[in-house]
């Protein structure tokens, strides 16, 4: 029979160790500091930039946390014992440059080397967002990032309804809602953030009430006004990470485009008609803008609104949910954004088609030599040349 002491001694003989003084300079050189302690220990402080994988989850999570088996890894726990076993395990998993931090976090702290006290989720939040915390691409760090994120929704209508609900449920900390309209009976066939008892209420306020009931972590800022050249700088100036465009008219969409390019804020664009939807992401500098895609709006008679042409109630549910997905990816900084690509959804054919969008170097707003550098009369612009005929 082998005792714990004997086993620890045996393992320590088989691995390399480093003391705190020798390890400290590695904070700057790309070395991975791997903390294998339990969650509550990590929450009480850890080495800055360290990766946290509790020893009990080491084998299953390390490949995601540290994919490169050639990485230099300094493993630590509280005193250097658990991390000795973890070091051995990593070597068995094929990691070739792993050392154990002698004396662990206690010795590191005693020497006065830097530590950080992490911001962390409360118990209730840990339960609410547990399905996010389980995804390696989100995790606690991502969830904290979402809670710090600010996303502005243009319109609390067909697209804004599902988008705002999913963003709120996901724990986006601050949502802004711009809508000057009131809830109308004809909205309820698709605008699921509202309800029959809210008929006649402000859409922005109605959405705010639904969102706050869904998730008290979310602060909602309402703008009960139509976005115009006069107020757009004030609204965007409140500071937003991402904008979700669910407007229902061309003047607002072109105004938002110009403003977002000048404010350098990505816009997740969605538009719908009958059974079809279009979704893309306009990220200033990284890809095209709305004007690169559609330099001029079609004349009003060729672009009927949903009020004129109708829309299948669930269609904005699909398109608005894709918009929410793209907004969350942008806020988290994960995945491939729908930049430079437009997704076309045809509900009748049950098909998605993708076309390529390219930035137009001659674009009057985001091009190399912009000719439009201040707000124009968007209503007149969208009325088209025929309005003057």
């Amino acid at each position: 029979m082998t005792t714990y002491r004997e086993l620890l001694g045996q393992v320590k003989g088989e691995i390399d160790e480093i003391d705190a003084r020798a390890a400290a300079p590695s904070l700057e050189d790309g070395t991975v500091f791997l903390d294998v302690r339990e969650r509550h220990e990590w929450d009480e402080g850890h080495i800055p930039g360290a990766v946290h994988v509790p020893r009990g989850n080491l084998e299953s999570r390390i490949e995601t946390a540290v994919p490169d088996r050639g990485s230099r890894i300094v493993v630590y726990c509280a005193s250097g014992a658990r991390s000795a076993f973890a070091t051995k395990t990593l070597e068995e998993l094929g990691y070739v440059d792993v050392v154990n931090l002698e004396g662990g976090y206690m010795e590191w702290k005693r020497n006065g080397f830097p530590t950080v006290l992490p911001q962390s989720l409360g118990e209730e939040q840990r339960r609410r967002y547990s399905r996010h915390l389980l995804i390696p691409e989100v995790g606690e760090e991502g969830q904290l990032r979402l809670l710090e994120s600010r996303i502005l929704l243009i319109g609390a209508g067909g697209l804004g309804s599902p988008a705002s609900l999913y963003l709120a449920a996901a724990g986006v900390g601050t949502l802004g809602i711009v809508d000057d309209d009131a809830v109308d009976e004809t909205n309820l066939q698709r605008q699921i953030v509202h309800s029959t008892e809210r008929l006649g209420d402000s859409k922005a306020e109605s959405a705010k009430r639904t969102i706050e009931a869904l998730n008290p972590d979310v602060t909602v800022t309402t703008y009960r006004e139509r976005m115009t050249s006069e107020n757009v700088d004030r609204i965007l100036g409140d500071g937003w990470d991402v904008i979700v465009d669910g407007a229902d008219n061309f003047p607002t969409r072109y105004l938002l485009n110009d403003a977002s390019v000048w404010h350098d804020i990505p816009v997740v664009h969605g538009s719908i008609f009958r059974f079809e939807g279009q979704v893309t992401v306009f990220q200033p500098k990284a890809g095209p803008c709305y004007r690169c895609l559609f330099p001029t709006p079609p004349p009003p008679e060729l672009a009927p609104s949903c009020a004129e042409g109708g829309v299948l109630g669930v269609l904005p549910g699909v398109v608005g949910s894709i918009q929410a997905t793209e907004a969350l990816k942008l806020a988290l900084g994960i995945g491939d954004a729908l930049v430079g690509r437009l997704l076309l959804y045809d509900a009748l054919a049950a098909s998605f088609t993708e076309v390529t969008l390219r930035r137009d170097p001659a674009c009057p707003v985001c091009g190399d030599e912009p000719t439009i550098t201040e707000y124009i009369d968007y209503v007149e612009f969208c009325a088209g040349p025929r309005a003057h005929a």
Partner: protein
Amino acid sequence: MTRVRIPPTLRAAVGGQREVPAVGTTVGEILDDLTSRFPGLDGQLQFANVYVDGEDIRTLDDLETPVREGATVILLPAMAGG
């Protein structure tokens, strides 16, 4: 023969079809073929972007862009609805 995807706003002009066949070796010829058979499209096509196999013809050769047999042509107008 090429199949051209017709957006919902233009379907009334083609008898409600979502896709119509058209003949031609360039985008210009294909659009001409469409308007000759569906006069209701006349004056409306310039408001739609045209994509051949997913690429915007403005980044190719515009109306001169060649269309190979079996290519997918998509007409895409801006939609305001939200």
